[in-house]
């Protein structure tokens, strides 16, 4: 079984700061990390390999040269090998151009070793889109199963896989043919504490880096900024509540005022929803 996990380097949005004057990212403030969902994707591949007792896990990332860090991180978790596609031609890609570039790299990877399963994160925390995974699946013409919370069974000989997919208020049990593409939720597994030999292997590991010339049959107009239909028009800070307004009167009067203020938000205030 050959599993390819797509992993992305993202700024840690928990710590990120925005320069309020220029509305740009204060990159200094945000360390780059492995997209947390992708860490779970790698972990799931490790789990599947363990259950099957054999297999190869490759990780694939597109990004600047320093993105090798997330490949090393994936090796720590237990991936066997890693590959970075890095080229100016990829820069500025939106999700459509990203899925194109990644699918071209996947085609090249499967020439050497056919790919049975592609696993992506549910979404990347910098863009929060979740569009790249399904996009790759379309381009490779394999079925996607998104929001996976459990891989219940992998049947290699019959080439099928049994999956639980999260839906709004529960889950679906889905059977899919292999090859297919999964995008995983965080709850699918918990990241195990990597053993020391993996850590040492990762510290030494040097990922393979491909440029656009290493890929075959690439239509350059579909890459990077050129291949991206969406553009960012403007950035602005969300309208802030005016702040600091005090309600007046005694407790009952204040409550009455509050209830009125909340009146136009009543659709949000339904018992036992949003859980």
């Amino acid at each position, binding site marked *: 079984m050959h599993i390819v996990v797509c992993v992305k380097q993202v700024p840690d949005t928990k710590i990120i700061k925005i320069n309020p004057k220029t509305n740009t990212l204060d990159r200094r403030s945000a360390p780059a990390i492995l997209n947390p969902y992708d860490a779970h994707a790698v972990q799931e591949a490790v789990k599947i390999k363990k259950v099957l007792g054999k297999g190869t896990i490759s990780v694939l990332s597109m990004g600047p040269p320093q993105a090798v860090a997330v490949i090393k991180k994936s090796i720590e978790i237990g991936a066997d090998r890693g590959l970075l596609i890095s080229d100016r031609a990829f820069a500025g890609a939106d999700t459509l151009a990203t899925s194109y570039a990644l699918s071209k790299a996947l085609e090249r990877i499967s020439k050497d070793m056919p790919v049975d399963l592609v696993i992506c994160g549910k979404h990347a925390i910098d863009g929060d889109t979740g569009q790249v995974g399904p996009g790759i699946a379309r381009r490779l013409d394999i079925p996607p199963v998104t929001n996976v919370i459990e891989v219940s069974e992998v049947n290699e000989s019959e080439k099928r896989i049994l999956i639980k997919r999260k839906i709004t208020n529960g889950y679906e049990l889905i059977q899919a043919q292999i090859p297919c593409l999964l995008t995983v939720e965080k709850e699918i597994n918990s990241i195990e504490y990597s053993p*020391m030999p993996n850590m*040492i292997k990762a510290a030494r590991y040097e990922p393979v880096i491909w440029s656009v010339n290493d890929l075959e049959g690439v239509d350059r107009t579909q890459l990077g900024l050129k291949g991206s239909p969406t553009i960012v028009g403007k950035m602005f800070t969300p309208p802030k509540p005016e702040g600091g307004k005090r309600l007046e009167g005694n407790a009952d009067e204040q409550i009455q005022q509050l209830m009125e203020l909340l009146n136009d938000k009543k659709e949000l205030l339904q018992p036992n929803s949003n859980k």
Partner: protein
Amino acid sequence: MSEKFDVIVVGAGPAGTSCAYTCAKNGLKVLQIERGEYPGSKNVMGGVLYRKQMEEIIPEFWKEAPLERPVIEQRFWMMDKESAVSFGYKGLEWGKEPYNNFTVLRAPFDQWFAKKGVEQGVLLINETVVLECLTENGKVVGVRTDRPDGDIYADVVVLADGVNSLLAKQLGYHKEFRPDEVALTVMEVINLSKDKINDRFNLEDNQGCTIEIFGDSTKGNLGTAFIYTNKDSINIGVGTTLSSMIKAKLKPYDLLDYLKTHPMVRPLIEGGESAEYLAHLIPEGGYHSVPKVAGNGVLLAGDAAQLVNAIHREGSNMAMASGTMAAETIIAAKERGDFSETSLNQYREKLYQSFIIKDLEKYKDAAHTFEQYPQYFKEYVPMLNRAANKFFTVDGTPKKDKQKEIMKSFTSERGTFRLLQDMYRAWKAVK
């Protein structure tokens, strides 16, 4: 059986990285283990990096290291409730190569420094805690980490795990600290625009300033406060020995709050946004608390060996120098193929002949003196402020009379004999 290294360095602070860097550069196989997410992620330092020791490891490091500002002015304040007697030195030559020292933020700096080590061939492993040293027949042969399959072996283990070195304690080299041997320092990084910093501290873009504050900064307790300028933030912190804190029933955060709202300090940081809050111990026992630094297969460097000059707030420089000496010792020991205590004791000799131990010895009684005689901070600083106020107030009194009056008030407040005694003690402590 897991693989064996020449050296395992525990900790990726200035001590550990200096050692790992030097060893790797000389062809040794080095594994460096850091518990933080990345080097510097858990480190706290007021922020003055001294040029000399760093330059000995990486010449002209200022051309590429992530530094904040070269320090061109050092101020000292003897601060009372609403006043301060201040002195200091500002030298524009310090703003040019080769500089004197720099303000730094540890997170980017330590990361950069560790990366230089990795470029030399150090295998750096983050997010891993070393739980204990592995020993065989009284010799340290490796470490046990908290990871599965986590035992690793080496000829020498260097403990550069910082002030509270649990590993050195386990080996019996340290005792638990007495509360008067460590200072608890709390500090905050406050974001403030470059322009505001330049205005308020009278600086230009690539110039920095440090202020060391004595007196009311610590509500009269033994300890000091500091304000350092970064590019677009300020480090402000205050520390006092654990023992005075316990005695005065203070919480660390109270002290910092007190300092931040002090009328002398508030205008400097006004409008800034608090970015980080950190607390950390600094060993201040000085000369008297330096433990055994070399054993069979093991060396201690930096704060782990309690190499901090509390009076001058030097630490990172001693950490780097000691880390380098440890590396030199290991390289020589490797040539001899002998990692016994006798062989590694060369490190101790190096330390004791260097500025590190000499400086620590010079100040060996300072902390005790100030701790035992709180009047230095509680009484003399206010007295000094009253005196300066009198002296500089223009009210028609002849200056000569003013001086007399000031001396009189000094002696009447504390008595001539005690005053002289206190002065002598203080002089002896720092001479």
